[in-house]
């Protein structure tokens, strides 16, 4: 049983968790830093407490303060949301040692999947395909070049310890290899304190397809179909949809089965996502990584399945979740999510901060969801990520969902900060997006869309 949940997060996901707690008849406790005092997650929760921190950027990462608030307010569970401490195995353990329930996978799962190399090895050992690649710590330039050419060009060169696309480059010609490897190695040791370089065969025409899984913690797991998150800018997702269209049914079945193999092997507990790269030229797919948390884009899955993933997480943690038979999970229609960011498309997408003089989201309905952690007059500060809101539209068809999204984005009124609303509208009404499934290269191939 769970009676009260500490929501160790901010923004739209904190609001989402507070609402799910209410639906599950569980009390919620919010935490906040000084800039978030007036935020919706604070006013909506049953209780709210300030977080002590040297700076607002550190607040939601302050494990000691979070545990102290959880104890003092009588919480018996902690929901970490995504980002911040969601994939911190040490914090998950600390919560469990304090006698509370961690609403997420075991610290062991977080640990294994958090190490990209070990995750890859585990996947490969279970027969799940991985992109041919290798980590090189050797400093011999000749060895590096040989390794790269043996993988086959073009090759992706990246910092082994890095993330978020920092220092990633594609090399097409053997003559350019050495310079690229050297530059990445320098960057890697400077930024990540680890000069290891990772080389991977580059798939020129790829889609990012991920399978939503839900494990019961006992070796059984279900899948909730897949999401297509191919539209990205600088390796960051901009638009997500479900299901993935234009992929052969047997390939989708193989992806789902691979995702379940990974989930079952580690007796995965709760919501997780297994990400794959789908090669549109060969039809092959490869395991990328597994995210051991609820994801930003989970609502598109909820819109097509009718399931409430966050409520399922809470009920599982409370020991009250009745197993959902795989055969009973049906996918209906199509859902699209757009991430509305505070950024300046015309100025290299630099962050945009300021007071939300006007902030009026489009009206919600059964076919349109808006998830936000902001309200009119709130300050958008440089301390946190630029996500202002997520708009999720459902339709019988992909085209119908896109048309509904286009109208919703047009009705979204925001003044005080600049946003990517224009770009999002241009994407969801773009002929190339509507007529076929876009690849991860869509935005770099259609630069005019970026500043629409």
């Amino acid at each position, binding site marked *: 049983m769970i009676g009260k949940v500490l929501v160790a997060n901010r923004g739209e996901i904190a609001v989402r968790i507070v609402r799910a707690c209410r639906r599950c008849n569980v009390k919620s406790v919010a935490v906040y830093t000084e800039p978030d005092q007036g935020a919706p997650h604070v006013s909506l929760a049953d209780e709210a407490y300030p977080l002590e921190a040297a700076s607002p950027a550190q607040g939601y990462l302050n494990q000691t303060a979070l545990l102290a608030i959880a104890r003092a307010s009588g919480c018996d569970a902690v929901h970490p949301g995504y980002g911040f401490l969601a994939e911190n195995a040490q914090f998950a353990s600390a919560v469990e040692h304090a006698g509370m329930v961690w609403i997420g996978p075991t610290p062991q799962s977080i640990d294994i999947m958090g190490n990209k190399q070990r995750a890859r090895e585990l996947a490969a050992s279970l027969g799940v395909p991985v992109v041919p690649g290798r980590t090189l710590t050797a400093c011999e330039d000749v060895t590096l070049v040989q390794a790269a050419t043996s993988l086959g060009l073009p090759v992706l060169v990246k910092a082994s310890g890095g993330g978020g696309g920092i220092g990633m480059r594609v090399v097409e010609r053997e003559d350019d290899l050495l310079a690229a490897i050297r530059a990445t190695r320098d960057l890697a040791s400077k930024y990540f304190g680890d000069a290891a370089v990772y080389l991977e065969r580059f798939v020129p025409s790829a889609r990012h397809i991920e399978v939503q899984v839900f494990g019961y913690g006992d070796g059984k797991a279900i899948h909730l179909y897949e999401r297509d998150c191919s539209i990205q800018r600088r390796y960051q997702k901009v638009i997500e949809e479900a299901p993935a269209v234009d992929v052969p049914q047997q390939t989708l079945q193989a992806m789902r089965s691979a995702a379940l193999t990974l989930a079952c092997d580690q007796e995965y507990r709760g919501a997780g996502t297994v990400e794959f790269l789908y090669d549109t030229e060969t039809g092959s797919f490869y395991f990328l990584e597994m995210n051991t948390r609820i994801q930003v884009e989970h609502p598109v899955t909820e819109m097509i399945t009718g399931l409430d993933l966050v409520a399922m997480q809470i009920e599982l943690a409370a020991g009250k979740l009745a197993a959902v038979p795989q055969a009973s999970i049906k996918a209906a229609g199509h859902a699209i999510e757009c991430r509305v960011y*505070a950024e300046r498309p015309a100025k290299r997408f*630099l*962050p945009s*901060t300021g007071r939300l003089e006007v902030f009026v989201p489009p009206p919600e309905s059964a076919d349109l969801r808006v998830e936000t952690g902001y309200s009119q007059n709130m300050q958008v*500060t*440089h301390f946190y990520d*630029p996500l202002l809101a997520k708009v999720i539209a459902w339709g019988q068809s992909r085209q119908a969902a896109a048309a509904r999204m286009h109208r919703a984005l047009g009705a979204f009124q925001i003044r005080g900060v600049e946003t990517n609303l224009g770009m999002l509208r241009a994407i969801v009404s773009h002929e190339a997006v509507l007529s076929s499934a876009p690849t991860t290269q869509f935005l770099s191939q259609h630069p005019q869309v970026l500043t629409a």
Partner: protein
Amino acid sequence: MSTTRIESEVNARVLRVEVTVGDNVTVDDVLMVLESMKMEIPVQSSVAGRVSAVHAAAGDTVEEGQLLIELSQS
């Protein structure tokens, strides 16, 4: 001798300062790295010159339009 003022384009926190007074820099050299909304934003030199003043240190909070670095060109 002319002076070029490098100002911040965003509200941010200074993550690192990559140069000190007296350094020679060329166009596009990274002078400073700012952090805003969880993104690293490099501040690059718009000219070739010598660093004549550094007005922000790692950990400082800077505002859009705030003077960060002055460069002198001969």
